[in-house]
């Protein structure tokens, strides 16, 4: 990436391929891919142009791979983008805080003096989740504001630091020279529906 002059872009880890399919991964990966969509497309498009218009004796080096072509074609599809955006939005507003509530270790790492939830508190978590989901099924616009919280701080004070950290977190670029506000990036790449 750095050799292609893309070191200033934010790159996120997509984890190990061996992790396999998990419910939360299906929501988390589109979120991360959308945040990196521009840089991925730039790289794949450059490869495509090189393979088509730059003459080289070494065909294997310049030819676009089947996988790269497949990803490029899918990423420009509006349908795929919409499907990814829907999952990414649900990850940001629902899955991420839900996962945090279920991981006392991660919750402690976020800081603050609030105790993680007890086993019996999960009834309250599920009741809240059911209420918001039931309302949002008929009103999907409800989940479009970036500051929507499925789990409010009033009900779940242990999430206070998680939300605060998320709003102020900075993402480092690949060359570690630039910083971008994560929330700003999410607003532009995930929550901006554009000509959807």
């Amino acid at each position, binding site marked *: 990436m750095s050799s292609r002059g893309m070191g200033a872009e934010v790159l996120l880890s997509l984890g190990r391929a061996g992790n396999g399919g998990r419910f939360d991964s299906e929501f988390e990966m589109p979120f991360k891919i959308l945040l990196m969509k521009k840089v991925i497309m730039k790289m794949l498009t450059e490869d495509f142009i090189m393979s088509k218009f730059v003459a080289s004796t070494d065909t294997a080096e310049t030819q676009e791979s089947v996988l790269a072509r497949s990803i490029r074609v899918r990423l420009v599809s509006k349908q795929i983008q919409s499907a990814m955006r829907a999952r990414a939005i649900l990850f940001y507003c629902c899955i991420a805080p839900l996962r945090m509530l279920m991981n*006392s270790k991660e919750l402690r790492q976020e800081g603050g003096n609030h105790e993680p939830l007890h086993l019996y508190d999960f*009834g309250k978590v*599920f*009741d809240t*989740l*059911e209420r918001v989901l039931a309302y949002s099924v008929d009103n999907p616009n409800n*989940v479009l504001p970036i500051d929507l919280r499925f789990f409010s701080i009033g009900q779940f004070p242990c999430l206070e630091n998680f939300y605060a950290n998320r709003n102020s977190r900075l993402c480092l670029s690949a060359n570690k020279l630039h910083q971008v506000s994560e929330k700003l990036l999410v607003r532009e790449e995930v929550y901006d529906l554009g000509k959807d």
Partner: protein
Amino acid sequence: MTLRFLSVLLLGMLKSLRRNGKEWLTSSDGLFSTRRWTPEMKEKLGTLAGDNIALGESPFGRAGYVDEKLMNALSSTVNGVVVGGQCGLFQHLQGLDDNQLLAILEFVKSRRDAYKKEDNEALLRQKKC
């Protein structure tokens, strides 16, 4: 189009929640729903914190990682390495150099039959139980 996808996903999540988590939902009068918890139960289980990483995901993640690294290893070997790691078995090996690690591996290999016998006996005891 995103809104249509959102609507479908939200409906799917709601249906899944009502099917898989109904025992926790007040609307289903579930066995573990909030209003079924008595003060005695809360006091007794008060020290248990919700943590799916330690209880569920982490061992599977470690097993996947070890399986990938060892390649062609038996599941019993993977199990041994993961459980050993969780019990802190390898912590004291961190300061050793390559020669010392090699010596330990040679020692373990030389006692393979003895360990295998112990393992089989333990398995037999479990089956009897």
